[in-house]
């Protein structure tokens, strides 16, 4: 599974993109798995109300399924324009 991080999530985790070996069936389970692995993930995912999620480049939420998904992205609310 390819996992992307943007803005302060990227900074806290220390990378913008990584391959993650996981069998997590939902985004929430992936977050829990990463959080338990290392402190830097725990720091990034401490307040999930400030985190937005896209699965295969479609905006979704934390309960989204990862079945068949190739890419998950985590980022704060967008501030374009």
């Amino acid at each position, binding site marked *: 599974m390819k996992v992307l991080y943007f803005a*302060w999530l990227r900074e806290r985790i220390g990378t913008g993109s990584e391959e993650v070996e996981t069998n997590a069936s939902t985004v929430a389970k992936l977050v829990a798995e990463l959080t338990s692995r290392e402190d830097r993930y725990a720091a990034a995912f401490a307040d999930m109300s400030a985190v937005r999620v*896209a699965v295969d480049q479609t905006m979704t939420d934390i309960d989204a399924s990862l079945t068949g998904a190739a890419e998950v992205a985590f980022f*704060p609310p*967008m*501030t*374009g*324009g």
Partner: protein
Amino acid sequence: MSVSVQIEDFDISQEIGTLKAVRTDIGAVVTFTGLVRDMGGGQPVSAMELEHWPGMTEQALEEIETQARQRWSLKATRIVHRYGALKPGDQIVLVIAASPHRGAAFEAAEFMMDFLKTRAPFWKKETTPQGARWVDARDADDTAQARWDQP
């Protein structure tokens, strides 16, 4: 109809010139240009870094343009958004809507900006005397976007 996501600056007259070069049925052109302000969250801002999601960004901007063209009768649209290192006074974003009449051009330009604020994958980091900080999304931007949902 086209979008560009680029490091380089843009020239508004030149962008309008390109849109109207091939036609004389445009009566109204509305542009919005966003500039880096020298203040943010009550702090002086000396620099801004704009992060984006390559590939996904273009797709999001094209989707916004397509929606605008479905809602209003437009002759031409254009979105240019910069990323990378910027400083106060620099141009960040340009939206253009061209129509036979001014009402549609004004509404479409404002619609595109409201959606861009909340739907385009950009993140701003400002440098202030207290250090660098990521700009928070504004509730006002969600409200501005939501009003287009009303019938």
